[in-house]
């Protein structure tokens, strides 16, 4: 099935991707960001907070936004 994934980590791309039917939020996160901790991110499904075991539906909009990003001094 196709979902819209918005990954605000790093480059910040948004794209439609194919995933397996019945995939959960936790499984998708682990697949996209294997070396990251979910607790360091705001994960939203259709703009709403989502549990890790929430099963994704076709056409869902998933955004992953880091809660820790290093700023700088210009």
């Amino acid at each position, binding site marked *: 099935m196709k979902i819209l994934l*918005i990954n*605000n*980590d*790093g*480059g*910040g*791309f*948004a794209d439609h991707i194919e995933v397996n039917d019945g995939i959960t939020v936790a499984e998708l996160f682990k697949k996209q960001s294997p070396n990251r901790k979910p607790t360091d991110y*705001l994960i*939203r499904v259709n*703009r*709403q907070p989502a549990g890790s075991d929430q099963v994704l539906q076709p056409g869902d909009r998933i*955004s992953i*936004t*880091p*809660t*820790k*990003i*290093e*700023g*700088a*001094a*210009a």
Partner: protein
Amino acid sequence: MPDRQRIRLACWLHQIWQQLTGRFTELEYEWELLRRRWERVQQTHRRCQLAHQHGWLLCLPGLQAELLDALAGLADMISSLRTAYQPVAPQELKLSHWYQELEQLHDEFATVTYLKEEGKLRVETPAITLADVELGSFAIDFKKEKSGPSINDFAITALDANPASQNENVTHPHVKDGELCAGDAKAPIKIALESGRLADVFLLIQSTLQTYNPQSAYVKLSDWHGVPCSDCARSVDSEESYSCNRCGNSLCEQCFSSCSSCSSSFCPGCVQGCSACKVDCCEACLDLSEGNGEPLCRDCRTSCDRCDKMVGTDELDEESQLCKECSEEDDAEQPKETQATEEVSNT
């Protein structure tokens, strides 16, 4: 915010994005990061080569692991830049999109207000504490400027300001004069703006405000309240403080002393007065008189012409310029010489 107001706001945002010029600022910070990561790869590779040439086999695995890490960092940066420069087809963002963005903003932030007279959309963060320094909460204001939208359309205002003691315009380690230096957030913010994901932009800015990067801060949090003067305890800007050359303590402008001979700065406890002229000098510039044992500066000490002993200038005999001992010896010799001269004259 009532629905009607939200609808009006959605219309306002819709209008702004329709005027989007599509020009965004270059990613200078990211290019600088790329350059630094490439340098790290080159340095690590050179070290591996040196270790291999010299047969330093024990350190090779560690160096190779470091090289792999450096290459991974470089690859990440290249990937970020590739994504940032991907051409983005202009999207048709409907009014419903903006309404949903505003709904999400209200879900993510406790306070969302539209300052109509100023033409600003404001969200407020919770109170932020970094490295035990309470910075308070911040307002993130979006106000469309002439062109854009861009990161420059977002201003950061400290609501319970606790600015750095040495610069009141720095209210956060990465905020100066109301502008956030977004650092690693710059690329995803750019993409989010191009896509009209306003809620994501506000969230990314909040995440940056909630993270401390001590390697690149306008003022480090360790210096936030300044450096305490070791003498009067007053807080002073670390760049305006003086360091004692002997004990390393930090001092303010009022409390530091300088050696009159070498002009280096010292704390009051690390200088001593010359016993002759009373000026303060450091340990290295004072010497003890071999005559009376008192400390003397360079200007107040000299050597006896005969025995070369180091004594104060006021310890020398005025006429002979000899030290006390040599002078006394001379005085003792003089009666004998006088008697000898008389004896010779009489014979």
